[in-house]
């Protein structure tokens, strides 16, 4: 299980540390920190918080948000993150994925993909952190999934935009379409509302991880209880 923590400015770092420690304590297997406004505003994440987060966590964590170069990724990893996740910058400059994989190994390189159904196809979207700048890329999602793997991505987080935040369940149709072409770990994102949604995404879309944010932030789902429920429903995971 993976979860996202969204935040926009460093005034909330105190809360982030507290939240990170709490989730870690409750049994989260990995944390993902998104600075979703980094790419649209053409700035990179403020990194002073990463080292502080690293101090309170003894599980892996990934940092996403406006990482546009090997140097920037190296700073994030040196501060204690396990992985970096790239999304919009990889669409602008796909060779970034190759460069990151070559320097740090594929296991450090996550590619986030924001995707939605357009007609009969799935299309990749860019700059989704800012509604004013969000745009379709005309890239077909399945093609992009294949390409980033060829370039060295070690994990793909597929954020199904239509499901995001509405808590009606993961986009099983889209995830099932992506799974056969994704030979690296695939993490589902967007749509978790109930424990049953988690069971369904593992059982029916055969994903390697499920990411959720709002249900944990609001306390709608307790991580410990969720994990017990999943274990009882044939999803093997760390207790």
């Amino acid at each position, binding site marked *: 299980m993976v979860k996202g923590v969204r935040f926009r400015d460093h005034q909330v770092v105190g809360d982030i540390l507290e939240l990170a420690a709490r989730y*870690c304590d409750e049994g989260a*297997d990995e944390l993902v920190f998104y600075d979703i406004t980094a790419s649209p505003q053409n700035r990179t994440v403020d990194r002073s918080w990463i*080292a502080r987060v*690293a*101090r309170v966590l*003894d*599980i*892996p964590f990934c940092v996403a948000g406006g990482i546009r170069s090997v140097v920037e990724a*190296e700073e994030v*990893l*040196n*501060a*204690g993150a*396990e992985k970096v996740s790239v999304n919009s910058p990889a669409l602008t400059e796909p060779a970034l994925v190759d460069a990151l994989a070559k*320097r*740090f*190994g*594929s*296991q*450090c390189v996550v590619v986030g993909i924001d995707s939605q159904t357009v007609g009969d196809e799935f299309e990749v979207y860019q700059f989704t952190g800012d509604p004013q700048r969000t745009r379709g890329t005309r890239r077909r999602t399945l093609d992009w999934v294949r390409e980033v793997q060829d370039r060295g991505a*070690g*994990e793909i987080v597929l954020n199904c935009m239509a499901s995001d935040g509405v808590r009606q369940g993961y986009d099983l149709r889209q995830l099932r379409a992506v799974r056969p072409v*994704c*030979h*690296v*770990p*695939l993490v589902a994102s967007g749509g978790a509302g109930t424990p049953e949604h988690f069971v369904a995404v593992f059982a029916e879309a055969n994903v*390697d*991880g499920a990411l959720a944010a709002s249900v944990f932030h609001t306390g709608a789902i307790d991580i410990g209880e969720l994990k017990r429920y999943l274990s009882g429903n044939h999803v093997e*995971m*760390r*207790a």
Partner: protein
Amino acid sequence: MTTDVAIIANGGANIASLRIALDRLGASSELTSDPAALRRAPRVILPGVGAAADAMDRLRALNLVELIRTLPQPVLGICLGMQLLFESSEEGETSCLGVIPARVRKFPTRDGLPVPHMGWNRLTPRCQSPLLRGLDDAPHMYFVHSYAAPVGPSTLATSEYGAEFSAVVQCRNFLGTQFHPERSSRAGSRVLANFLELQ
């Protein structure tokens, strides 16, 4: 004053979490490639993120291969660091440190299992070991790897991903974990604490 652990500086970027984990256990650590510092450290950790051939090239360039092979104190290889203890690796077709006579191979991609193997997986201990003291039965540890070492006489614990592989190894004073103890929550911390108690 000497530090508790010398971490071999081998160009990897992911050292921070290891140092923090040691710090949490009250152990001081020093990141170094200085032969004298490595020789006098009470314990040595060989970390490793990246590719085997690159890592061996760097160790050769630093002139550390023979030195590491002959260290008498407890040495812990983590992840790629564990794989480097073996004779050779299929990753970049490189010879390694040759402490353990076996070859590290790529995970078979048949069975449709995603590679790298990334996530929490159970350990199955095969024998008693000071390194594994105090752990629950079959604890979950955090793994990230595309290559794996076969099960053999040096295997202290196995894990399974498509096939069984070595998750913890020991040969004399050389120990290795395929998982990342520094990112494996309380169970991983226990393994590091056990390592720090080895003489």
